[in-house]
């Protein structure tokens, strides 16, 4: 008994001491939440920034774009992150004007798991839409086989893996599919959370990648780096000009070039199905969301400094993680926009 009590006091004491010691430093913690799409690069950025500025701890939780927008509107986090720009209703519901700041460019790729198929498959927008809607149900369907002559496709059922949470990645994907398939636009529509006709739900990019990796015959959609880091097969997609393009830094950058020249002031632009040679059709900007007039000046200053770093030095890390760095024109516009945040 005595021993147990002693042990307990020791443990509590140790925890309290540790607490006191960590609270001692002047560390500032800033909480953010949102998209899983850019989580790999954000976690890299925040870790690197913390190495450079140990007193700044930026805690980012990837709960999905929908979550990021919601928590930002509730002001339970200081900043949000999303790959689907906020709708006018969402912006209206927030307690103050919110700035969308693009950070990197990424690609959403169609991942699949077909045992026995080694060559990357080609998808056209319409076929992809039909598969996702559940209209094409077997891998050896004529529609898929027609695009991939010479590939031996099995008669396996197609299982669609989609997001169970509100997701900017979903937004990008359905935005593209709605542009290439009026049927899809009517049946499913464009939003961060849609009513999927068929399929299984996974939480976050991580969840969908995990589902596809473990389920033979499945197809899903994730950010490029998730497919690469987990060595999951993904296909090429037919772009606006008719070419079958595989997602890569070059093809994503090509998709952004037209938009970069005509970037709207609030940076909310869609670059899916972009015209241009070699442009990857399911590309997108991803944004960090900040209040223009946050109450907390100290944190605002820290985040503005961080953004300046991310837009310059931070862009170096993008390509290693298969995100395309921002075009220079966009960065210049953003540096300007940062001034809008009242410090």
């Amino acid at each position, binding site marked *: 008994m005595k021993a147990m009590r002693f042990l307990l006091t020791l443990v509590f004491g140790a925890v309290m001491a540790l607490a006191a010691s960590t609270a001692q430093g002047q560390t500032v913690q800033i909480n953010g939440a949102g998209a899983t799409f850019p989580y790999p690069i954000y976690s890299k950025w925040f870790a690197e920034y913390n190495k450079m500025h140990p007193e700044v701890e930026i805690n980012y939780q990837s709960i999905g774009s929908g979550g990021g927008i919601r928590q930002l509107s509730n002001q339970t986090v200081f900043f949000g992150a999303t790959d689907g720009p906020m709708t006018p209703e969402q912006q209206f*519901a927030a307690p103050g004007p919110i700035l969308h700041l693009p950070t990197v460019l990424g690609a959403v790729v169609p991942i699949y798991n077909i045992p026995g198929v080694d060559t990357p498959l080609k998808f056209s927008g319409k076929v992809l839409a039909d598969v996702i809607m559940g209209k094409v149900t077997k891998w050896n369907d004529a529609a898929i086989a027609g695009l991939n002559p010479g590939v031996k496709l099995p008669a396996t059922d197609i299982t669609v893996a989609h997001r169970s949470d509100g997701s900017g990645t979903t937004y990008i994907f359905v935005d593209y599919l709605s542009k290439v398939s009026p049927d899809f636009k009517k049946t499913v529509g464009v939003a961060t959370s849609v009513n999927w006709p068929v399929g*299984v739900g996974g939480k976050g990019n991580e969840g969908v990648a995990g589902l596809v990796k473990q*389920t*033979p015959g499945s197809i899903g959609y994730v950010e490029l780096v998730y497919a690469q880091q987990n060595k999951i097969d993904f296909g090429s997609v037919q772009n606006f000009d008719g070419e079958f393009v595989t997602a890569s830094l070059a093809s994503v950058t090509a998709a952004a070039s037209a938009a970069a020249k005509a970037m709207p002031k609030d940076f909310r632009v869609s670059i899916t199905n972009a015209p241009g040679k070699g442009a990857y059709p399911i590309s997108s900007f991803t944004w960090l969301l900040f209040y223009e007039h946050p109450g907390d000046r100290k944190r605002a200053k820290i985040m503005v400094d961080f953004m300046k770093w991310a837009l310059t030095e931070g862009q170096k890390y993008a390509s290693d993680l298969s995100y395309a760095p921002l075009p220079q024109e966009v960065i210049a516009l953003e540096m300007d926009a940062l001034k809008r945040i009242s410090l």
Partner: protein
Amino acid sequence: MKTPSSRRSSDDRGFRLGTGFFALLVVLLVAGIFWELYRTSQLSLSKFGFRFWTGKTWDPVSGEFGALPFIWGTLYSSVLAMLISTPIALGIAIFLSELSPRVLRTPLAFLTELLAAIPSIVYGLWGVFVLVPLVRQLQVVTPEWMRKFPLFSGPPLGVGMLSAALILAVMVIPFTSSVAREVLKAVPYTQREAAYALGATRLEAILAALRFGRTGIIGAIILGFGRAVGETMAVTMVIGNNPQITTSLFKPQYTMAAVLANEFTEAADDLYLSALIEIGLVLFIITLIINALSRLLIWQVTREVKVKTTPRPVSTMAFSAPTGAE
């Protein structure tokens, strides 16, 4: 002037009120939970009314919230889990309280307690990496003719109703069995002695004891059901998270607790959040009714006999008292 006895009675009154206040806090807590849930789900309650529970479509985009798929998923998974687990749990309870040699009793009881104490997330982890692939294999080897039946239809995902029911069953077994054991312990030995005196076999004596405590046993089963209904983490990791209503064992479905865990942090608008909280409210009410009912049934048996001389192992109390499943 305060006499010693009057001072004592005012002290005693202070004691009663003081401790009573803390006891009141417990009551206020439960009332507070109900009130808070009710208040924040007003938006959804007033907009949908009863339609909420008959609607089949859960579509956050268009603002159409029908919670029937979740009720279906919760009930189906919990009933299945009880069908699988109850015989086993009762078998264990009977074995441990009637049949096992004394020397085996403690270690076996300890082992079943351990099963009850394993956190839900650990079961979930095991479920995802061990159970789901096993179920997927099972689906793959299911012959074509069986797959024609709706009960066995669906692509071989592994995640789905069967995995959820199995994992729930494993989690509920130790729980139900320890409560059933408590009930059986409360049955006076005279019941069994009378049976033996009349020439009963072991089984018949046990059945006599079971008959005496039958309301309590039913209470134990209902408690287990309540635990299955509220289980969150393990279920959400293996059920597939698809709000569809189907009798298929293999197709992914969704439960009330699972949708709360997945969608709460990102309910993007007030109506969505309010709809989710309404689900939480109903979950609360369901578990309240289940607990009240089962407690009543168990109490009926245990109050007849006050045979508590040694303290119950405290760990059983914590884990076998109706624990909030997660």
